[in-house]
């Protein structure tokens, strides 16, 4: 079994805005591309990519859900999901070889592929289904928060962010230190009521989700009244309006 650090210097993670995500999958493919062509766990394999059962490793997925409220129209929520880099990561403590680990410096949960035997215990332990067994290599892969980007001096500073955040067209994905209450992401979580995914699992996930904003139609706003007939109706209004010009 592998132990978790008692605390981490930083708690790097993602804040994902469910009010803004349109489910376009840009983040899914940018992640796939980066981690297939660069990245510490490259390549992400695709078994049978042009065949009847294509099976590739993706470290990030977008799920769509419908909700049908009692009043009002059905809603659709797009829900991007990758590793949440939990403080109490069960995928780490369950690992029999020490391949799964959580870094004390920044809290990123990683897999040391050289030590991974592909037993799949971490995938069983993760309540979010965020682990991905590479179909060709037989080792476990997962979101690395692009740690090869975020402190990579060969990249311009502005690009030292995860590939999914860099590409997100609606700006629904935010990256930063959630351990620092003054960081932009922490302030965003505070102002928008960011929440933990499945807190009852006691994993203390670092990533946070921002809920869809309630923007109900204002039922009390006044409706438009027809022009009063007593004042000549439409033509009367027109005369008065033209006279004012």
């Amino acid at each position, binding site marked *: 079994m592998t132990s978790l650090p008692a605390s981490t210097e930083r708690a790097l993670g993602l804040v994902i805005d469910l009010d*803004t995500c*349109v*489910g*376009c*999958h*840009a983040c*899914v*493919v*940018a992640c*796939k*591309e980066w981690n297939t*062509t*660069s990245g*510490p*766990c490259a390549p992400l394999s*695709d078994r*049978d990519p*042009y*065949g*009847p059962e*294509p*099976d590739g490793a993706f470290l990030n997925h977008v799920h769509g859900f*419908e909700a049908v409220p009692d009043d009002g*129209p059905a*809603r*659709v929520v*797009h829900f991007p999901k990758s590793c949440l880099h939990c403080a109490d990561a069960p995928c780490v403590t369950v690992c029999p070889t020490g391949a799964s680990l959580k870094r004390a410096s920044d809290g990123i949960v*990683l897999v*040391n*592929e050289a030590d991974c035997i592909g037993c799949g215990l971490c995938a069983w332990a993760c309540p979010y289904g965020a682990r991905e067994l590479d179909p060709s290599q037989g080792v476990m892969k997962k979101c690395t928060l692009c*740690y*090869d980007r975020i*402190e990579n001096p*060969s*990249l311009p500073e*502005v690009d030292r962010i995860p*590939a999914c955040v*860099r*590409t997100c*067209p*609606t*700006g*629904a994905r935010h990256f930063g230190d959630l351990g620092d209450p003054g960081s932009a992401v922490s302030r965003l979580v505070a102002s928008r009521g960011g929440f933990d995914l499945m807190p009852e699992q006691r994993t203390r996930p670092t990533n946070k989700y921002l809920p869809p904003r309630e*923007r109900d*139609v204002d*039922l009390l*706003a*006044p*409706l*438009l*009244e*027809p*022009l009063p007939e007593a004042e000549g109706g*439409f*033509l009367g*209004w*027109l005369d008065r*309006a*033209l006279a004012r*010009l």
Partner: protein
Amino acid sequence: MPADPAPEVSDEIRKTTCYMCACRCGIDVHMQGGRVKHIEGNRDHPVNRGVLCAKGAAGIMQHRSPARLRAPLRRTGPRGSGEFREIGWDEALGIATNWLAPVREKHPERLAFFTGRDQSQSFTGWWAQQYGTPNHAAHGGFCSVSMAAAGIYTLGGAFWEFGAPDWERTKLLLLFGVAEDHDSNPIKIGLGKLKARGARVVSINPVRTGYSAIADQWIGIAPGTDGLLVLSLVHVLMTAGRIDLPYLLAFTNVAHLVDQDPRSPGFGGFLRDEEGRELVWDPERHRAVPWDAAGVRPALAGTFNVGPTHAKPVFQLMAEAYLDPALAPEAVGPACGVPAEEIRRLAALLARTAFEEEITLERPWTDFRGRRHERMVGRPVAFHAMRGISAHANGFQTCRAIHLLQMLLGTVETPGGFRFKPPYPKPLAIHPKPHHKVTPGKPLDGPHLGYPRGPEDLAVDAEGRPKRIDKAFSWEAPLAAHGMMHMVIANAVAADPYPIEVLFLYMANMAWNSAMNTAGTMEMLTATDASGEYLIPRIIVADAYASEMTAYADLVLPDTTYLERHDCLSLLDRPISEPDAAQDAIRWPVVAPDRDVRPFQSVLLDLGHRLGLPGMIEPDGTPSFADYADYIVRHQRRPGVGPLAGWRGEDGAAEGRGAPNPQQIDRYVANGGFWSGHVPEEAAFFKPWNAAYQDWAVATGLVDAPQPFLFQIYAEPLARFQAAALGKGAQQPPEHLRDTLARAMAPLPVWYPAPDETEADDYPLHAITQRPAAMYHSWGAQNAWLRQIHGENPLYVPGAVWEALGFEAGDWADVVSPHGRISVPVARMDALNPMTVWTWNAIGKRPGAWALDPRAPEATRGFLLNHLIPERRRDGTANSDPVTGQAAWYDLRVRLERVPARSRSEPRFPPQAVLVPR
């Protein structure tokens, strides 16, 4: 853990333009070891500002696709079998020349040259013009010509390509029929801005996906009734007097006098003085005066005797049309599937936002009348609309209705509203008319596509018969400004109006997802006459991939990928402008092809030289252009104006106008692949009437003289066609089209239902498609990564229908239309109009196509709705908008029948041979 946490990302970044959909985003192509390593968005690029969608990021798999053709192909098996042998380019171009040269000498109209999702239309159109055939267009006729045409005839510009919401300032955005495309990243970026500012988004769409999912309000309207909803909003606003009268008076033709005397030769048209100026009624002088006469305060209501006739202002006609109680929300709600209360609330929200939350920019500007305005006042309501509007037989008028609503609210070209992208706006008067005069062995008399002003501009002969193979600009589709590619094969096989010799297609999958009646179209492509000759004798297809259409070619000219070619996204056709800048861009070969393929545009120039087409061959017989890049730099459409506007002049210092610059492409490459010419701040709004904008447009080469104009609420060209339909004038439509034209050519926006092709009880459901955000047609659906996101396309069935028919998960249904029957997997969806079923577009594949395994789910369980959609109606006319010829894909009506689960969708087709052996 890997050794190096900070690897060098790449050797080099090459900046070019994406082609994974129609958006034309800037991309950074990271190179390593001379190969493409990965692709991300270009942060400096004005279209996408660094972001990139799923399609763009999957571009590398498009580049490495096993479906890529390797060399020219000559058919060896029967058409459609996909059996070919690879040949060399000399042989291929020799064959093409031998087919095309005699046709040009004898009857050039027997070449039908249609290009699909082509982004080089000003070039391909020029080539077709030099060849001399009238039969050319791109894919706009089956895409969104109704949006484009309605915009041009009304505002001098249109949604998407020609305009955009003011994302920085709008407080309320209404989306009509917008799925997750058209455009892709700019809308997503914009929605992100609106969300961040707390602005409100309302989506009107039968299906709640993507953009509609995050809308603050979703109205699941019945397909094809948007125009009725919009006119009801117009009704509520007008009955309440909540319209922007000063805006209408200053910037639209609301005061123009319309001839109302049915006996008058000008019935339905504007009254004009001897100098051709439109007249308005001056109530103080009691006479008609030119609309721009000094100090005139024109009448808006009443009937006035002018000379031998009597006339009404446009506004009077609007009041008569739109105050009609038949347009009240309570009257239209049931047809739209929208409660009357919801329509009334939306009207109130529009009025409140437009008139109580107006925004002001402290920017003085001067209008074309010479009047100085101290500030720019805007009404922060923006609109966007797309194919959900245009793919109906009433799409043109529905789009006109949306533009009417925009004008009543005073929101076009004002801060916070809808803004044009240069070179738009451009008044109808300076758009070309269609050209179609054929002279054997000579070029056509002018550009093919244009905007008819009246029946005299139609492409018909003295007897009224169509002169084009697609019947565009005929009485069947008078304003078919983008042609009607979806009718070419059916008309050619029927020899109606005449047969063709060569069908030449570029990047268009007409044997599959781009055709109505797909199974029938496949039969047409292989149909023979009594002697066994194919009814379409020769088919040439240019494409980079082994599509379903390539299997029906006699000769395949393999194209490169977008990373291996030069292209220009030109101000002459489809630039990348934004409202604050005229912009164009290039593609350039960031890698060389690794196989025997050539960029199609260079191939066309080579063919043009071999055929001796004017402009492509020098007097000494040498080619005029070495390749397409050479054409991009040196071709001049007008003196000093060429395909690219940036870095013109011999020293590269000129913008817009200037002599060709041999270093121009290098300058584009150095700048990241694009050029921006910024609109001055003073010129950024009120463009049609803003003197500073007009001057800037002239200086930039967009127009040759200032072109201020009024928006056309009342569209006189439509009135002229309507008058013809009512029996007036020399050119008369065929009898069977009179009623349709009289209704559809209304000069004020109207709504009419889709032609009733069904007994509604038998076919109670609407059936439509939407395009997924992560795919662009069949191109994207073959991509190794993208097909793992959307590999299947069940038919989505609304909850009430699902329960009524007793469906359960894993079930299948027969979908039946008056035209056909398909068997497909179904899935439940509740965020859906209750009388509508839908599926994703273009995922279903023919077995063997696109180098996918014939057992792939796209080929076994995937399906097309196209089999249910006939290309003609029961009366023989095209299944299209009677105004523009826009394919009416979404007028489809169906019923569902629950059937036992099966493993393959129906109909099935025999596999096509794999064109590219693994």
